[in-house]
């Protein structure tokens, strides 16, 4: 897949919650083909102390208008600087990176798409592409609290959407793995797709294994190059250190060595 490095223009930057923003970038040139689940490396403009790019999941792609959307969690200096960019400003972007989800060759009919916190980011375009391909996804999202719930309308237009909150301030109290969809109803699904904090993904992978359902994880590791050159972002896959940026970030869970 052809990768580009390009100056993209900010057309929108919405603050969604205390910890998240949604940035829309536009390219003058036609964007290359981008798969759901791929990511980009964003150069943070004018931010002392931030040297490396920030790898950010691609949330949505609008091929008609050459726009690409990023759901960004505000964790440190770099992502907070991204939250402050204004329409008209330029962000130098490298994309598309990583393998993404292979929706074209998907044979599942009823997958469950599970997101923890900002881990919902790669699942939006995945849900859109699945629906386009006659697949009927269901979303199950977990957050700490009601205030952390973002983009509910946007996601619920794509597929049925269920929530858990750790403090019980909205919907089912607990973790995603406590929800009925992951327990009594889990056999309604033929695949699980999960992205979120590692302990949450591990719990989901364990459930999938017990129920013998195919499961795919989208990993989020600390990265430098994003191109498979520096070998910093490794995870043990099929028994050997493998670049999450180049060979991932999406892996079938049985290739991991998670206990």
């Amino acid at each position, binding site marked *: 897949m*052809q*990768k*580009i*490095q390009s100056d993209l223009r900010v057309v929108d930057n919405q603050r969604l919650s205390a910890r998240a923003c949604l940035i829309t970038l536009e390219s003058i040139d036609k964007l290359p083909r981008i798969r759901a689940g791929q990511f980009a490396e964003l*150069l943070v403009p004018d931010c002392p*102390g*931030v*040297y*490396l*790019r920030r790898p950010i999941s691609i949330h949505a792609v609008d091929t008609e208008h050459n726009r690409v959307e990023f759901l960004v969690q505000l964790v440190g200096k770099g992502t907070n600087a991204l939250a402050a960019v204004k329409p008209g400003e330029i962000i*130098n972007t*490298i994309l598309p990176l990583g393998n993404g989800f292979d929706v074209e060759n998907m044979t599942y009919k009823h997958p469950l798409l599970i997101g923890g916190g900002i881990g919902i980011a790669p699942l939006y375009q995945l849900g859109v592409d699945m629906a386009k391909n006659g697949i009927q996804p269901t979303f199950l999202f977990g957050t700490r609290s009601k205030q952390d719930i973002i983009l509910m309308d946007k996601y619920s237009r794509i597929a049925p959407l269920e929530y858990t909150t750790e403090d019980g301030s909205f919907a089912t109290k607990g973790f995603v793995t406590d929800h009925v969809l992951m327990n009594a109803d889990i056999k309604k699904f033929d695949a699980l797709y999960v992205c979120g904090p590692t302990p949450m993904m591990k719990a989901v992978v364990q459930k999938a294994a017990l129920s013998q359902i195919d499961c795919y994880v989208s990993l989020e*590791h*600390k*990265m*430098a*190059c*994003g*191109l*498979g*050159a*520096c*070998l*910093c*972002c*490794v*995870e043990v896959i099929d028994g*050997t*250190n493998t670049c999450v940026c*180049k060979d991932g970030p999406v892996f079938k869970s049985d290739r991991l060595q998670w206990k």
Partner: protein
Amino acid sequence: MEMNGMNVKIGALECKNPVLTASGTFGYGLEYQDFVDLERLGGFIVKGTTLHHREGNAYPRMAETPSGMLNAVGLQNKGVDYFIEHIYPQIKDINTNIIVNVSGASIEDYVACAEKIDALDSIPAIELNISCPNVKQGGMAFGVTPNGAESVVKAVRKAYHKTLIVKLSPNVTSITDIAKAVEGAGADSVSLINTLLGMAINAETQRPELSTITGGLSGPCVKPIALRMVWQTYNAVKIPIIGIGGIQSATDAIEFILAGATAVEIGTANFVDPNITMKVVDGIADYMQRHKIDNINSLRGALKI
């Protein structure tokens, strides 16, 4: 914008310009081909290669620092035979100098690895890594004493017949003593500096940022140290020097050449701007035009003092 007067020589190695890439930051070149015309590089140095497969260190291996980063990759690679069988055929016809960075845990390993690469027609040089700070036996044991450096370079020199570059560690008391020992042992060139041993701590979790606790510091933060060491080494040895350390612009590259470098390697900056090498090549040409310099070699060590 190509121009004459940018050719440099490192031993028998002819480079069309002085811009190379540093090992471990440029993969096997292929990772960058969407962003870089590889044939416009003076050369590129592929990932550190060892006799046997190495898994490298556990994740996390990287921590961002002010104006740079720490890494603790630990020479992950699939071994020289895999390189020869699977990677070399993909890169051998690229029309630039492809240099293999060779590392090892023992003199025998270095020699065996170098011998195998000696047989590859399209690899005109090796860069001997006696300075990796991230593995117990990543060569730094050899690279921190003049005797250790001399012994490994002497042995490889006997077995390897093309251009032999030796990459030096900055984690030493006197880099010039090591450079002189390496020159005496038959090296054609020295490249410097490898990463500086550093450390990062997360105060919130009270844990180290790297699985190995310490790692190698690189990026613009190390440039002043690298420049100083290139200058000192230029005044101590006669063999050509390849300057490495925080270069991210043509101006940085020119500074290294003024300090005595014949060529430069661009490393960590490739992570921030995958096209940076092309900008540096163009920028050097532009500098030469502005300063009416016909031949880049006339700038070498031309620091006005």
